[in-house]
């Protein structure tokens, strides 16, 4: 069973995404900010996919992507955000993001994208 690591400062978002992914057959871990997420990755968590918000307290999503990429070179990292500025998108891509999704994302669409990124999911 593939494992997805969700990072978002919104409890509602985490509940929504976690429910969607667990029903679809994924194992899910969560964190509520970038700093906590990085701590878990440094502690040994090795998910098959990371999905992170961009605008978060303590450590924003782009910083998390940059630091996570140093730990996990080949793990796909998706940004799931309301942010629509091209500059932020380019910065995320430059720091190692694998994709950019704008909220709200339909449950079926999200699962479809994940299955495209994770063959065998």
């Amino acid at each position: 069973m593939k494992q997805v690591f969700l990072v978002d400062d919104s409890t509602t978002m985490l509940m929504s995404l976690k429910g969607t992914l667990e029903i679809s057959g994924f194992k899910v871990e969560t964190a509520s900010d970038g700093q906590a997420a990085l701590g878990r990755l440094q502690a040994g968590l090795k998910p098959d996919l990371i999905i992170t918000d961009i605008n978060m307290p303590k450590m924003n999503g782009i910083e998390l992507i940059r630091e996570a990429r140093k730990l996990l070179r080949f793990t796909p990292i998706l940004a799931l955000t309301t942010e629509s500025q091209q500059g932020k998108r380019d910065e995320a891509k430059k720091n190692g993001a694998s994709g950019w999704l704008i909220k709200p994302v339909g449950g079926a669409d999200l699962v479809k994208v994940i299955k495209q990124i994770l063959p065998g999911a």
Partner: protein
Amino acid sequence: MLNHTAQKPVSLWQRVTWRDAGVVLISMLTLLTHFWDPDLMKWDGVLAMAGGLMAGIVLGRMHVPLYMKPMDDAHQVVAQDIGTLHQALGILESQVTMTIKTSEEAVLSMMQRMQRVHAQVLQLHARTMEAVEHSRSLSAESLEGSDQRRHAMSAFAEHQKAFDATQTDNRRRVRAVAEQVRQIMPLAELIANISRQTNLLSLNASIEAARAGQEGAGFKVVAAEVRNLSTQTAEAARQITQGITKAAEQIDCEMATADSMGTGGSDTQQLGQISDEVERMQRTLAEVVPYLSELSDTMDSGIKTMTNDVIETLGDMQFQDINRQMLEQVNTALSGLSEHFAQLYQLIDGQAPPPPLELKELVNRWTENYVMQSQWTTHSHGKQQQTPESNGTSAAGNTAPPLIELF
């Protein structure tokens, strides 16, 4: 929109203050003092005091800081900002309206999905109840048949048991007969032996008869007949032995055949009944299997539909996070407006300089905190008198990006 109606001019008497009244009173007292005691208050003293009082009245009305613009500039600033206020409130109203609309759409979508899930549940429940009822019916039929089959099997078993007992008894008796027949074999041998002895005796008698001469002629005939009888007896013994042997072998063969067939016999009527019941069971099974298959397909399809609806409903819940961000931005903007107009109030009261930013600039700076395309869109729509390109909040560079993009 502020209603700038013409204001009624204020009369002189309405502008007189207690300070003015005090000054006039002191002036009157000064004059009275001069007239009462000219040496105490001379004309130059009266004139000096009057001049000082008048200067105080004039300067006293100018109670603003020296660095303040004139009152006309303050009015201009206030008037301009109040004009912009309508636009600013329009922007915020658009954003709040969009937030409400987003909430309504998401909630309606969620309600529709839940209604669909509920309908699916009812439908599956109805099919399940139908399947239960049908299963009960099939089960009752099967039970009824099983009772009959059990009865038939029981009777058949009893009959078969009796048949087996009879068969066993028959074989036992036949074996006994075969044994008895075999027991006759030594008698046949005895007969043959007697025949051989008799034949020997007849030969001896013939010899003695020949020795006896003429007197032995009759005896010779008897001896011949005895020898003849002996021969026939031997032949009979041989045939009896052969017949007994053949009969015993036949019995053994039949016994062997009966043993190999075991209890093989059946009651045609009982088997027929059991066959009918088996056929009935097959018909029932032929009816149940496709029914259960169809039911399983229906259940799978229904559950799949419900699962998809639940997934989409969970996705709809994301509207709460979006609305939260939008309302936080509106809240921040309202705080800024509140602070700005507090400064304007102090400006009107002459106690503070104009705010550092005009309201127009403050409104433009709201876009620095925007993250969503919809915020720029409502901002542009709210500013009805300006085009998006002219106010620095251009959507250029913030054109609608694709919702999903893989790098």
